[in-house]
C-alpha cells in the first residue's frame, strides 16, 4: 500500500528532519521502501518549508508525491501553500497552536507547539510531537520503528526529551477529536 505523506511548516521547525525520520523508520526498521524529497529554496529559513515521503511495501518507481493522502501541517503559511488543496480522501494533522485554517478533508488537531513548550519545556521538539501523533493516528510506520529512527537522528543528549515528545504526540492523537 502506497502512502504519500507531505510535511509543511516554516524553516527551522524541523520539517525536513521529520520527513527523513519517517522515511528512515520505514526503510531501516520496518523493512519497507521509502523515498524522501523536499523543496529547496531561499525560503528554507523562515518561509514555508515542504518535505514529502512516499512509503510502500514494494519498490517505489515514480519518486515524486503527486496526491498526498496524509498531511502534517505546522504553520499557517505552510497550510496556505501546501495544505489547502488536500483531497477529500486525505487526512491532515494540524499543529493547532500555529494553524488556524482547517481543510475540507478529515483533520486531527494536535497542539504540538504549545505542548512542546509548556509540558516538555522546548518548542523545538514540536515536530517530534507531530510525528508521534502521525504514527499513532495513521500507523504509516510502526511506533517501535519511529522511536528507533528518532533515536538514530536526534543530537546526543536529547534522546530522552525526544522520546517524551513522541509519547506526548501519541497521547494527544489518542485524545483528539476527529471531526
Amino acid at each position, binding site marked *: 500500500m502506497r502512502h504519500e505523506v507531505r510535511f509543511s511548516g516554516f524553516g527551522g521547525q524541523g520539517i525536513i528532519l521529520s520527513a527523513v525520520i519517517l522515511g528512515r523508520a520505514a526503510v*531501516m526498521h520496518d523493512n519497507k521502501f*521509502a523515498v524522501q524529497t*523536499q*523543496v*529547496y529554496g531561499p525560503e528554507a529559513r523562515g518561509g514555508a518549508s515542504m518535505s514529502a515521503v512516499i512509503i510502500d511495501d514494494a519498490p517505489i518507481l515514480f*519518486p*515524486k508525491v503527486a496526491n498526498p493522502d496524509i498531511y502534517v501541517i505546522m504553520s499557517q503559511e505552510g497550510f496556505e501553500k501546501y495544505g489547502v488543496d488536500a483531497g477529500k480522501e486525505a487526512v491532515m494533522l494540524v499543529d493547532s497552536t500555529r494553524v488556524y485554517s482547517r481543510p475540507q478533508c478529515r483533520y486531527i488537531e494536535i497542539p504540538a507547539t504549545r505542548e512542546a513548550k509548556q509540558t516538555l519545556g522546548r518548542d523545538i521538539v514540536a515536530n517530534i510531537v507531530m510525528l508521534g501523533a502521525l504514527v499513532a493516528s495513521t500507523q504509516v510506520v510502526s511506533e517501535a520503528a519511529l522511536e528507533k529512527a528518532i533515536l538514530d537522528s536526534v543530537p546526543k543528549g536529547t534522546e530522552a526529551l525526544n522520546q517524551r515528545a513522541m509519547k506526548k504526540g501519541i497521547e494527544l492523537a489518542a485524545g483528539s477529536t476527529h471531526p
Partner: protein
Amino acid sequence: MTQIEFWQGNTACAEGALAAGCRFFGGYPITPSTEIAEHMALKLPKKNGVFIQMEDEIAGIASVIGASWTGARAMTATSGPGFSLMMENIGYAAMTETPCVIVNVQRGGPSTGQPTMGAQGDMMQCRFGSHGDYSVIALCPASVQEMYELTVKAFNLSDEYRVPVFLMADEIVGHMREKIVVPDSVPYVSRKELVRGMPPFRVDIDLIPGFPQFGKGYGVHVTGLTHDERGYPCATNPKLHEALVKRLVNKIESARHTIANYEILNPDANQVFIAYGAPVRTVQQVMHDHPDKNIGFLRLRTVWPFAEFALKEFKNAKRFLVPELNLGQIAREIERYVDIPVISLPKLGGDLHTPAELLAALEVPQ
C-alpha cells in the same frame, strides 16, 4: 554483509567514491552537488585522503588531474556553472589521458539558471564541451542505489580507459533519499602499468597507453600540446596529430560494446521509450501500471559512448519516445541512427514528467 541505509543520492555518490578507493577530492561547492563535497570533506581525512576546496572549478579539476598523475583515484563534483568552467581542463584530461571522475549534479541552465531544480541540460556539453575532437564516457544514475554503483563504475572505467568519466546525475536523484543496499566490497579495475623501457604514450592493440607509476623513476612529460609517443610536444606534424586525436576517439568508440550498460524491456513492442537518469523512474511507473500496453523500454545507464546498436534490438518499433529534462539532446542523437520517428518529450523547469504525461504521449496517434 551488505548494509541497508536510507541515504541521499549525493551521500551515496560520495560513499561509492570512497568504497572505490577515491582518496582525493578537489573542487568548489555548488548546489545541488554540495553534499558530495561536504561528505568527502568529512570522510577523506579519516582515510588518509585529501580534500581540498580550490578557488574555483577550473582549479578544482586541475588539482584532480594532478592528483591522478600521482596514481590516486581522484574526483570532483559540480553543477552547470562549475561544469562550464571546467571545460578547458576536461580537454586537458582527455588529451593527457588522465583518469578522473567528474560528477555533474545537473540543474536548470543556462547560466546560473535554477540552482535547486533538476535538469539534464548538460548531456551534449559533457560530450562536446571542450574544444577539439575527443571521446568520453558518461553514466546516468536513476536511483540512490545507482548513485553509489555508477560512481564505482566511473572510477573503474576511468582507470581502464584513461579518460575522464562523467557521472551525469541530476538534482532529483542527487537530493532524494531512498533505500540503498550497500555492498561490503566493490569491483576494482586497476590502471594498466607502463612497461619499463616503453615510451609512455606508445599503445597496444587496445589503444590505451600504460600508466607510469609515480615515484618509480619514470621521467614523463605530460602536455596538452599534441605529443608523440614519448610525450614530447610535436604540434606541427599533421599526421601525428591526426593519429593521436583519432586514437583518443577510437579507444572509447571502438570499445562501446563493452562500455555500454543498458537494459531492454519488451523488445517486440511497437512503441518504445528511451530514457536515462531520473525520467527512467516515470517510464518504469507507466510500464508497471499498464502491463497490457506492451511498452518497450531502452533504459540507458551509459549515455556516452552512445550504444546505437541497442536500437536495433527493437525490431517491431514504430517510434521511439524520448522523455528528457532538456529540449531533446539525446533524442537528436537517436535520430542519427534510425529511420522511424523519434518523438522528443522535453521537460524544463525542474519537475519530472508525470506518468500521466508519458501515458498521453503514447496515446498520440502515430
